[in-house]
């Protein structure tokens, strides 16, 4: 039985099962349904999380945990995200979802994940899915860029991925001191240094939109066709069911035809100002 949903507009009750401190201002919440089972989801989809008395925001699903739970990684930015990030174990939260499109479930291809900052969160379930079925893919590369070595999301899991011999993990930071022995520079620059077959690759990209623009440029330069590039777009999601129009992106509503969108379908909108 799944969590009863009277409608997509009524939140279901969840409780915080665990809080994982990722960074000083970022936590991952494990959310367990108060009754029934959590609904199925596709990596890349999002939920609307309601901090009671404060408000509701869209948050990508960053994985699944024990007790049929959702994982959501949240950074303290505004009032709602700060309220969510400060919830303790046992606290209640409203959840609507999952909504939107997910990352493509491809097989027999090379897979290139390009993540910037918190953009690793929506990609993590897709990365886990690919690594769980590693034999079904060609080369797999995880390219991750962040601001500073001290702001590295999912540090332990990154290290675990890095230790695997069947995954090419490259991490870069914008700035570092001499103690950092990894890459320094922007994440799109890692694309040219990565070995993959552009014609049989699928690229999944998530991060700040400016970063994604540069990443798309680097992927195209490497020869990846537009229809093999997927981006997770972010707009101001409110209703999440295509009614309110807050997340409009040209003729699209990100909550319905996104957040994961194929680049060739949005290429003409992607660098249009005011959209």
């Amino acid at each position: 039985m799944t969590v009863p949903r009277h409608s997509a507009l009524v939140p279901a009750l969840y409780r915080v099962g665990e809080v994982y401190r990722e960074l000083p201002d970022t936590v991952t919440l494990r959310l367990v349904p108060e009754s029934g089972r959590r609904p199925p989801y596709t990596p890349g989809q999002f939920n609307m999380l309601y901090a009671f008395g404060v408000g509701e925001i869209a948050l990508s699903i960053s994985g699944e945990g024990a007790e049929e739970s959702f994982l959501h990684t949240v950074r303290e930015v505004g009032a709602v995200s700060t309220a969510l990030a400060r919830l303790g174990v046992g606290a209640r939260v409203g959840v609507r979802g999952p909504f939107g499109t997910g990352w493509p479930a491809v097989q027999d291809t090379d897979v290139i994940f390009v993540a910037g900052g918190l953009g690793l969160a929506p990609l993590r379930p897709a990365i886990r899915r690919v690594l769980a079925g590693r034999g079904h893919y060609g080369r797999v590369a995880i390219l991750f860029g962040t601001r500073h070595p001290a702001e590295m999301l999912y540090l332990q899991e990154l290290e675990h991925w890095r230790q695997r011999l069947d995954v090419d993990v490259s991490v870069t930071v914008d700035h570092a001191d001499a103690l950092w022995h990894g890459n320094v520079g922007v994440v799109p620059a890692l694309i040219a240094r990565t070995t993959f077959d552009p014609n049989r690759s699928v690229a999944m990209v998530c991060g700040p939109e400016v970063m994604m623009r540069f990443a798309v440029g680097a992927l195209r330069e490497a020869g990846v066709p537009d229809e093999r590039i997927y981006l997770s777009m972010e707009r101001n999601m409110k209703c999440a069911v295509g009614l309110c129009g807050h997340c409009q992106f040209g003729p699209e509503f990100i909550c319905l035809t996104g957040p994961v969108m194929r680049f060739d379908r949005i290429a003409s909108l992607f660098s249009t100002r005011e959209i």
Partner: protein
Amino acid sequence: MKSLDSILRELPFFAGLDEEHARLVGGCARNCRFEPGQYLFHEGDPADEFFLIREGKVALDVVVPGQEPVVFSTLGEDEVVGASWLVPPYHWKFDARATSLTRALGIDAACLRRKCEEDHDFGYLMMKRFLPVFVKRLHTTRLQMFDVYRKR
């Protein structure tokens, strides 16, 4: 044993270079090896030799008074270390330090500049190879400056 000309032509950066031009560049080149932590050059030094990394990794950093040096870029295989050799006054504007065992081709900058001056067709070909590298770096530096991951 392979000549430097033939090594050059095997490097992706110089792919497609004809034999004559490879000989011209090769005449200015030497093989170099840097241990981890060893500096390729320091800020303020004359930019009389630049490097094409064959293997290894190099960090570019700037000394900030009273602080640890700030690393602003790392370069790897088949990447060019240094642009200041191309423009007067030919002095490095940052430090370059090997972060792992690094093998590189060192190219005598004055020698290459002279050959470019003597043969403008060759010079133009060289510029067509180096300029895109530096323009791309300018673009990525801009992205780095945007500080896109900061809290908004």
